[in-house]
């Protein structure tokens, strides 16, 4: 069992996301550490790419702040090394950065370096199962996980392909579109989870979750974890715009993380016993 699967073993996992280097290297360290204090089970660390086609406005702005602060893949790896946290870390980025890293063409040098600094896996939103072969192979070589995103549009056939290249957990996209906080949970989430009930990987739901209540709803509906990005990035962005002290922003992040985590736990405890499918 990989680091990532382990994180889901003991109740619902809370998986927060922040963009590394947003708005600068040092603050970003403090923010990620605050997430751990708030109860993160896994942290998704964004390595900013100039063309973030799967991101909504909130994370796009974070990407711009981070790139303007000079974040590079090497600084990203240094950052992971500098982080003082004790939860598994997943690198979320786009394939071109993975592909370009190092002297040798292809994803292997990037994965090797990721393993070296202690990352546990990857989420690459623009890498569908069909193109994931080389990265999957490198992950296998260095013992890292490749987390795939399952969309509401993913059908049975594609799901099979996806699962076959995935490990760690499945990133279940709660609704169509791009990342971004929403005020309510999509109706499609429960249906998606239901479709995935036979898959033998933890299911973490993301896209649009911004409150403890939403986290509870999602977990109650059967999610093994909740992924929260934009709601947390909003806190960073607002702190940046208001020029707030880093410690204050970190406190706010910790507190929001705590609420989200508590929501997930609450949802878990409210979960109805699953009906046996075979009884129908």
């Amino acid at each position, binding site marked *: 069992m990989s680091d990532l699967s382990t994180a889901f073993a003991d109740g619902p996992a809370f998986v927060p996301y922040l963009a590394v280097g947003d708005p600068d290297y040092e603050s970003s360290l403090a923010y990620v550490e605050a997430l751990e204090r708030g109860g993160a089970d896994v942290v998704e660390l964004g390595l900013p*790419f*100039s*063309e*973030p*086609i*799967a*991101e*909504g406005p909130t994370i*796009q702005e974070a990407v*711009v702040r981070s*790139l303007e602060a000079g974040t*590079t*893949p090497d600084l990203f790896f240094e950052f992971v090394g500098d982080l003082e946290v004790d939860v598994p870390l997943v690198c979320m980025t*786009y*394939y*071109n*950065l993975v*592909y*370009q*890293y190092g002297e040798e*063409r292809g994803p292997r040098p990037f994965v090797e370096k990721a393993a070296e600094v202690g990352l546990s896996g990857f989420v690459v*939103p*623009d*890498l*569908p*199962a*069909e*193109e994931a072969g080389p990265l999957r192979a490198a992950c296998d070589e260095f013992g890292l996980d490749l987390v*795939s*995103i*399952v*969309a*509401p*549009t*993913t*059908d049975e056939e*594609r799901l099979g392909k*996806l699962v076959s290249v995935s490990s760690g957990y499945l990133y279940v*996209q709660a609704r*169509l*579109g*791009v990342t971004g906080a929403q005020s309510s949970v999509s109706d499609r989430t429960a249906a998606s989870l239901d479709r995935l009930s036979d898959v033998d990987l933890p299911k973490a739901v993301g896209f649009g979750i911004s409150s403890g209540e939403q986290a509870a709803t999602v977990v109650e509906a059967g999610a093994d974890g909740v992924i929260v990005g934009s709601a947390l990035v909003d806190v960073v962005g607002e702190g940046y715009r208001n020029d707030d002290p880093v410690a204050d922003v970190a406190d706010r992040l910790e507190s929001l993380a705590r609420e989200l985590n508590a929501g997930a736990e609450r949802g878990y405890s409210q979960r109805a016993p699953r009906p046996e499918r075979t009884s129908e």
Partner: protein
Amino acid sequence: GKFGEYGGRYVPEALMPAIEELTDAYERYVLGNEDGFVDEFRRRLAEFGGRPTPLQRADRLSERYGTEVYLKREDLVHGGAHKLNNALGQVLLAKYMGKERIVAETGAGQHGTATAMAAAHLGMPCEVYMGERDINRQRPNVFRMRINGAAVTPVTTGRGTLKEAISETMRDWASNVEDTHYVIGSVVGPHPFPRMVRDFQAVISEEAREQIREGAGRLPDAVLACAGGGSNTMGAFHRFVPDEDVDLYAVEAGGSSLEVDERTGVAPNSASLTTGSEGVLHGSRTKLLQDGHGQIVESHSISSGLDYAGVGPELAHLVDEGRVTPVAVDDDAALAAFHRLSQEEGIIPALETAHAFGYLHEHHAGLGGVVVVNVSGRGDKDLESVVEETDARGTPNAPDMSAFGGGL
């Protein structure tokens, strides 16, 4: 879906089912002419689009250069550019697929106007994403799209050009993929787009190849086409690719320099075939303008339509194979060529197109006795930029515009 090592489908999972559905539709309707799709497409291209376009001998350029210069007149296609060939094909395909909404990106606005026209013609709601900077550079095209009933949504991220518009359109598509078709404007993006757009544009070389055999009595020695994303390029080249004696020149925007400024992340050109390196952008593996880390750099060209950091994967492959020769023409030479064609042949070309004529001007001696240049579009949309840039650069062969100052 690959051209050698280029191409592929590097898109979010949410889009993959739509891309599979599109691939299926492409194979059935476009390749298989199911339900007479190709027949209807050809008929509409003729009656609504104005095809075939002529292949015209350029008398005065032929005399000037001592070589037979022929012009493939895509500027005469409805809307003023080759873009309609593809836009009409895709909007019609979307209709066959039962889609209810069209989204598109646009750079210079030519693809956006073509898509808006095709959507109005076929009664499909249409939304076009356009970089804010391009909106300011190509305002008449914005008005044309609105007048055709399309929504035009400004994209404010990044430098506000084509690259950002594509990203934003992909986001819209990811949100509305079930009832929406994304009419991508060039031979870029995930499979099947590069192949499908090429097939829609291949009518250019299909006609030109017949026409030059009739007009000049033989195949040309060279075919020249400007290359941004590469749709007019692949359209003009496709049917000549098997003719090994026909040299194919993809003329890129050399901008102000072919050097990339790594520090600022800016390439003062859009010459991804000439100077770019392999990478993954907007759904496919291709040649890109990127920095050492893999971040896409900001491209530049005097012409909005060439101002893009990527290029079609098939072109990248044909360049690697040695079948297509990539060359670059800078802003100044393109502007001079714009005025030359306007004054000597009575054809005002798009600034994109002018790059091909800039190359012809500088290298005509080495191109052989019969040369076909693809006039990919007309330059009405560029009048304002041309007047400004001509004035700022003191372009030597330009007319004096001072008596009519004050902009358009």
